[in-house]
């Protein structure tokens, strides 16, 4: 069933903090929620559906987190959805919210996301220590020291091997993000960088450099969707999801292609539902945990042929006003913000800004009516949740 006109995104808010030493995790969720509701012209009393993932406080205590945050926020609910697929979850939640609204389960749906890894001094090199010993695969993986960076490093190494992709081509993805971030006063890395800056930064996990990685930042964001009857009484532009796809890509008993992410399936499904093609998309929010993540998603979603990603992104291919496909015009996770090590919410928010014409004028896509947001949550080179969403401005 097409999502078009079933529900509208009426509120969006990105928390301005990037270093939240003075705020609790619950507080960040609440501030994000209020920001998005205020943006919509609604209040907390209007919310009857709530969507959250594993970043809520108390998630580590089974069954507690979502109930606890509902209480903190003071919500009176008819519908709760806690689908967890790491950073891709919130993009998936938009589809779930639209379908819940269409099914009459709720009329105003709130999605929140927040995190404070910078305040908590999170280290990607120690991230394997956080992996659950109870998973079936951990005994066959943890002895080998898979941290975030080296699993993405294996994706980049394989892409270089199969397709001749270069470090310089990957660097162009960071360069494009930095060109956008210079206009964002909240960006963690607001300075324009060059290809040389990226490839001269230290190697963190071969062949990836420090500047191939996203930032570690605190903050969060929220989105509000509403029933058409509610949305049409508000003052915001009518933005509707028109197509969505979700899957979990995993290692399949040892038979997998590290360069074929879940986006191969979810992109196809989302485009089919929306009745549009990749070449119709005017703006794309692409998950950018690392430069290689963007490259693989571009190919998997069909923006270019497999193996052609390096050529697609080179020479400013992703820079707004310059290249073929403006991406992550807020500076993305690579330069602006990657709150709680989860990039899906900020991807949605910048897509909404573009469709409303509210992006920074220097990066705004003229008359942007069709945008895509895509998330790869988990690890590109191992198991991950993959969510694609196509959004359209209706008026």
């Amino acid at each position: 069933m097409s999502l078009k006109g079933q529900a509208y995104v009426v509120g969006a808010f990105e928390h301005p903090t990037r270093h939240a030493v003075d705020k609790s995790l619950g507080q960040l969720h609440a501030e994000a929620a209020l920001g998005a509701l205020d943006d919509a012209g609604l209040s907390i009393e209007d919310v009857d559906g709530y969507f959250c993932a594993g970043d809520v406080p108390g998630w580590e205590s089974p069954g507690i987190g979502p109930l606890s945050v509902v209480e903190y926020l003071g919500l009176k609910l008819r519908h709760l959805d806690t689908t967890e697929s790491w950073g891709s979850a919130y993009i998936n939640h938009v589809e779930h919210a639209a379908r819940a609204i269409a099914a009459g389960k709720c009329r105003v749906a709130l999605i929140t996301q927040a995190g404070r890894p910078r305040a908590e001094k999170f280290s990607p090199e120690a991230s394997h220590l956080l992996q659950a010993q109870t998973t079936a695969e951990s005994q066959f993986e943890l002895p080998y020291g898979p941290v975030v960076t080296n699993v993405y490093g294996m994706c980049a190494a394989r892409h270089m091997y199969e397709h001749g992709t270069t470090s310089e081509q990957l660097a162009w993805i960071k360069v494009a993000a930095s060109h956008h971030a210079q206009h964002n006063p909240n960006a963690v890395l607001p300075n324009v960088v060059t290809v040389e800056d990226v490839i001269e930064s230290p190697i963190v996990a071969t062949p990836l450099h420090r500047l191939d990685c996203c930032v570690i930042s605190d903050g969060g964001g929220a989105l509000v969707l509403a029933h058409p009857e509610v949305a049409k009484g508000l003052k915001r532009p009518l933005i509707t999801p028109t197509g969505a796809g979700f899957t979990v890509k995993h290692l399949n008993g040892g038979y997998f292609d590290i360069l074929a992410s879940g986006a191969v399936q979810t992109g196809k499904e989302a485009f089919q539902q929306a009745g549009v093609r990749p070449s119709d998309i005017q703006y794309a929010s692409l998950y950018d945990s690392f430069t290689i993540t963007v490259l693989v998603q571009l190919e998997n979603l069909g923006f270019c042929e497999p193996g052609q990603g390096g050529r697609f992104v080179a020479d400013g291919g992703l820079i707004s006003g310059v290249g073929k496909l403006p991406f992550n015009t807020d500076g993305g996770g690579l330069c602006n913000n990657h709150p709680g090590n989860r990039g899906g919410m900020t991807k949605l928010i910048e897509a909404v800004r573009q469709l409303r014409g509210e992006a920074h004028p220097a990066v705004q896509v003229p008359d942007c009516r069709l945008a895509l947001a895509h998330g790869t949550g988990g690890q590109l080179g191992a198991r991950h949740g993959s969510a694609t969403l196509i959004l359209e401005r209706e008026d």
Partner: protein
Amino acid sequence: MESRIPASPQPWPETERFWEAANQGRFMLQRCCDTGKAFFYPRAHSPFTGRNHCEWFEASGRGTLYSFSVLPRAKPPYCIAYVELEEGPIILTNIVGADFDRLEIGQPVKVTFVDSENGQKVPMFSPAG
């Protein structure tokens, strides 16, 4: 060169056979009896059919390097890798006993066993031949 001592695995009863064999220097795999395909990681149920109709066999320990990444700042530096086994599955491992600068995707590798923190041996791979 100093090499990294891996963390010890925490076996479940369904995987004890794999780890006991590793301590004897043997690399075991399972195959799905319905499809005949070898799979990894070991588990009670086939990832292809969901049925608990699987059998163990001793694998050749040979494969090729599918991809790898070196963490140069780790102390000591180490190399994570995916190795594509002769029997089919691609598995996560470490490359040891090699000059990391000379590794090439596609090169043949063979299994070796390395003591983990508690003495349990874990399979790793080295350049072959």
